[in-house]
C-alpha cells in the first residue's frame, strides 16, 4: 500500500463520509493535513509521517465510535445506543467480550422484566373476572381460598405488574446513562493495532 499523505486523507475521508457532518469531517481532515504539512516542513517524509500516525482505519473507527456514542448521549433512543455499541465493537475484538456480551445480557434482562410485568398486569384482570364469576355463583375451579381474597389478589398482582414495568423503565434509563459513560471510557482505553516501523 502507498503510504502517502493523499492516501491517508483518502482513507479517512472514505471511512467517515456519510457518517459525520461535512464541516466536522473537513475539520478533522484539516488536522491531519496540517500534521503532514508541518512534518514535511521539518524534513520528514510522507511515508515516515504516515507510519508514525498509525493506521488511518483505526483513527476512523475511533472517530466513528466517538460520534455515535455522542449521538446516543444527546438523543436517547434504542437505535442510537445500538449504533453506538456497534461502532464501539469495531475498536477491537476485545469489545466482543467487554461491550457486546454485557449489552446483550442487559437487553435480555430488561426484556424479561418487561414481559413479566406485562404478564402480571394482564393476569390481574383475568383473576378478577374469575373471582367475580365465583361470587356470582357461576361454577369455576376454586383456586382461591375465598372469592373475596381473589379480588384483592387480582388487584395486588396488577399493581405488582405495573410496578415491574415502571421499574424496568427506570432501570433502562439508569443502564443507558451508565452505558454511555462506560462506552466513553472504553473508547479512551481500547485501541486497535499499532504501526510497526
Amino acid at each position: 500500500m502507498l503510504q502517502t499523505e493523499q492516501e491517508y486523507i483518502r482513507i479517512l475521508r472514505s471511512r467517515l463520509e456519510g457518517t459525520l457532518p461535512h464541516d466536522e469531517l473537513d475539520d478533522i481532515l484539516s488536522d491531519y493535513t496540517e500534521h503532514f504539512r508541518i512534518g514535511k516542513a521539518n524534513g520528514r517524509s510522507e511515508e515516515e509521517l504516515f507510519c508514525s500516525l498509525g493506521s488511518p482505519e483505526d483513527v476512523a473507527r475511533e472517530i466513528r465510535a466517538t460520534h455515535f456514542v455522542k449521538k446516543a448521549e444527546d438523543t436517547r433512543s434504542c437505535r442510537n445506543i445500538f449504533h453506538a455499541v456497534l461502532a464501539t465493537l469495531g475498536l477491537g475484538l476485545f469489545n466482543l467480550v467487554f461491550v457486546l456480551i454485557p449489552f446483550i445480557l442487559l437487553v435480555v434482562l430488561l426484556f424479561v422484566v418487561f414481559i413479566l410485568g406485562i404478564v402480571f398486569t394482564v393476569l390481574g384482570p383475568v383473576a378478577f373476572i374469575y373471582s367475580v364469576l365465583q361470587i356470582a355463583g357461576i361454577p369455576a375451579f376454586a383456586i382461591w381460598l375465598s372469592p373475596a381474597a381473589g379480588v384483592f389478589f387480582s388487584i395486588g398482582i396488577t399493581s405488582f405488574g405495573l410496578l415491574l414495568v415502571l421499574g424496568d423503565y427506570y432501570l433502562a434509563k439508569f443502564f443507558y446513562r451508565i452505558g454511555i459513560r462506560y462506552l466513553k471510557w472504553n473508547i479512551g482505553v481500547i485501541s486497535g493495532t499499532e504501526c510497526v516501523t
Partner: protein
Amino acid sequence: MNIQFKKGVLEICVLSVLAHKDCYGYELVGEISKRIDISEGTIYPLLRRLKDEGYVTTYLQESVEGPPRKYYRLTESGRTEEHDQKEEWMRFASSVNALLEGTTDAAD
C-alpha cells in the same frame, strides 16, 4: 509496552503538556511521542473529545512559515481536570511502585 495501557494514560499526558503551554497539534504529538511510543494519529481524536468535554479550546495563530496553525489551550475546567487526574495518577503510581518493590524484596 501494552497498547491499552498506554492509551489509557494518553489523556493525562495531553492535559499535562497543555498545562505547561499552548501547543499546535504537531508540536503536541511530538512532545508525547518523544517519550511514549504510540500511534500518533490517535491524539487528534483524543483532542476532539477533550474539546467536546470543554477541557480544551482551539484558536488559529499565524506562523512564520506557511498558513496559520490550530493551537490547543486548556480551559479552566481543563486545568481542574488536569490537576485531579495528575493527583490520582501520582497516588496510583506510588502505590503500584510500592507494591512492585515490595514483591521484589520478598523474592530476594
